[in-house]
């Protein structure tokens, strides 16, 4: 098992390096460069001063030298500085990431809590009204864009449930109750499509597991139906469900970025979109890099957890 974990962690290193290269190129492929963006239409700058700025940002160096320097800075935890405010990007991210993480984790918990029972019931009651209701709900959740649902919820809550429509973010630790009040609607909007996906997946997984021999054996030896369903069917269906939950976390991070903009929550999504609108490229670059690195690490954790759930995977 230890060997599997080490191997899996080593495999992450080139992926992370690749992610840094893409993020690095992202900022160097835009037309013009940072200095030109900073100066904008200013004409009171002498060529000498421009030259000094180029030197300050290391733009007179070859690309691979620039990349190497940037990477070394990254490894020391220096994500650079905002072009507009001059603040260190790491502090901007640490202020924003909490919101995004809360949204994503909240949506994940809500989705799993609803979808796993729903999917199981749909499978056990295949081709009955329960199944059709669950599948109808899943299809509905899948086709409704989350940001549209968010906008609709903003509109509906403001009319019918004004208590829930104050989207004024309060950190969880400052006031948990206010925080939950403000986050519940965005979390719901983000969770719907994930709930739909997990419901479909659970249904398919349970249906497949029900056909296995060990389930027939369990029934044949006279176990109660409930025990068979819970211990033999649902438990064995959990592996594909865990897979899909892990895979969908990236989707949740992406979705949170949009949902934050719908509800004006001060998370990573707002940070990135505002930075794009202000052409604050270093902030865009570091934020995209940060969220992607988190995503890669989550995938690593998911992969390692498979090793615990399913011993076969360790030896592949």
């Amino acid at each position: 098992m230890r060997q599997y974990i080490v191997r899996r962690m080593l495999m992450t290193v080139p992926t992370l390096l690749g992610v840094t290269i893409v993020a690095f190129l992202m900022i160097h492929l835009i037309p013009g460069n940072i200095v030109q963006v900073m100066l904008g239409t200013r004409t009171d700058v002498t060529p000498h001063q421009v030259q000094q700025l180029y030197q300050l940002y290391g733009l007179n160096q070859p690309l691979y030298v620039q990349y190497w320097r940037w990477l070394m800075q990254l490894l020391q935890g220096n994500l650079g500085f905002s072009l507009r405010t001059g603040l260190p990007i790491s502090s901007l991210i640490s202020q924003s990431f909490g919101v995004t993480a809360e949204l994503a984790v909240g949506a994940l918990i809500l989705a799993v809590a609803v979808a796993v029972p729903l999917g199981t019931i749909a499978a056990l009651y295949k081709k009955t009204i329960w199944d059709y209701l669950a599948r109808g709900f899943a299809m509905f959740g899948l086709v409704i864009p989350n940001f549209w649902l968010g906008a609709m919820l903003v509109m509906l809550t403001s009319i019918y449930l004004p208590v829930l429509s104050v989207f004024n973010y309060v950190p969880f630790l400052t006031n948990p109750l206010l925080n939950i009040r403000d986050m519940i609607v965005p979390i719901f909007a983000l969770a719907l499509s994930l709930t739909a996906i997990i419901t479909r997946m659970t249904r398919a997984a349970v249906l497949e597991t029900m056909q296995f021999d060990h389930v027939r054996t369990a029934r044949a030896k006279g176990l109660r139906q409930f025990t068979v369903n819970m211990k033999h069917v649902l438990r064995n269906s959990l592996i594909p469900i865990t897979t899909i939950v892990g895979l969908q976390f990236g989707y949740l991070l992406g979705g949170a970025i949009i949902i934050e903009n719908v509800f004006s929550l001060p998370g990573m999504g707002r940070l990135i979109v505002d930075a794009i609108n202000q052409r604050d490229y270093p902030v865009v670059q570091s934020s995209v890099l940060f969220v992607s690195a988190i995503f890669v690490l989550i995938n690593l954790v998911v992969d390692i957890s498979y090793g615990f759930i399913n011993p076969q995977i360790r030896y592949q």
Partner: protein
Amino acid sequence: MALLTRKFDTNNKTERQMSVHKRRFDASLWFGGSLVAFLLLLGIAGPLVFRNPDEMSTFYLAPPGAHGFLLGTDQFGRSELTRIIWGIRTSLEISFISIGIACILGVSIGLFAAKSKAFDMGIMRIMDVLLAFPAMLLAIGIMAMVGPGITGVIEAITIVYLPIFARVSRAPAIEQMTREYIEAEHSLGASTIRILFRHVLTNIWPVIIIQLSLAISDAILIEAALSYLGLGVVPPAASLGELLASGQSLMFTDPWLVVFPGIAIALAVLGFNVLGDAIRDRGAVRGQ
């Protein structure tokens, strides 16, 4: 918990019986297919009837049904119905072009990766890196680079889906390459290109078709999300996402400006999703 004690039927039909049953009438295939066909018709023929999406009338923010505007008008007095039809056209155009390019390039990469080990090692690492980004985030990052506009959205969606098509086609292509008929083709002197595109491709085609349909529905959503954030299609061009974005500020007084484009997006996504699922289910039953 009473719900969880249900007994189930272990007496499953054989695959053959099911496939015979399926072939009789497939409701989801018909439903998804007709919805897609309807949207295509709207997107292709609609603009010929409703010619000018920018035409302004003197009726500003007319509610649905008023003054002969079926879906009302926006703040510039433009017919919402006409704009939605043009929006469907733009959204479909973006999705088809971007997914089309991503499919052709991605599948080619997947096929060549199945043929050459060295190519496989190199290019698939790059694809893995692209897959390491959350899709929406990658699309947003690309939009930050290329700037707003239809071309930018097409580029972003293409880059997001390229690695997915490469991944999806690579595994079955590798499997095909081990078959005996490939060896036979080799000994007959068939060229690599011929083997890959004439034989391997035609055998892995069903997998790609399913992916195509689902990818197009995702692309419609990505376009809508990007435009909604103000990074994608920008006014005066009309796309489904752009309509949502420009309607949002008037949402509280004139909700139809947000409701109708949202329904149009949901219908488009529904159509391609159901169609993709139906094709997959047919394939699964036949054991492909």
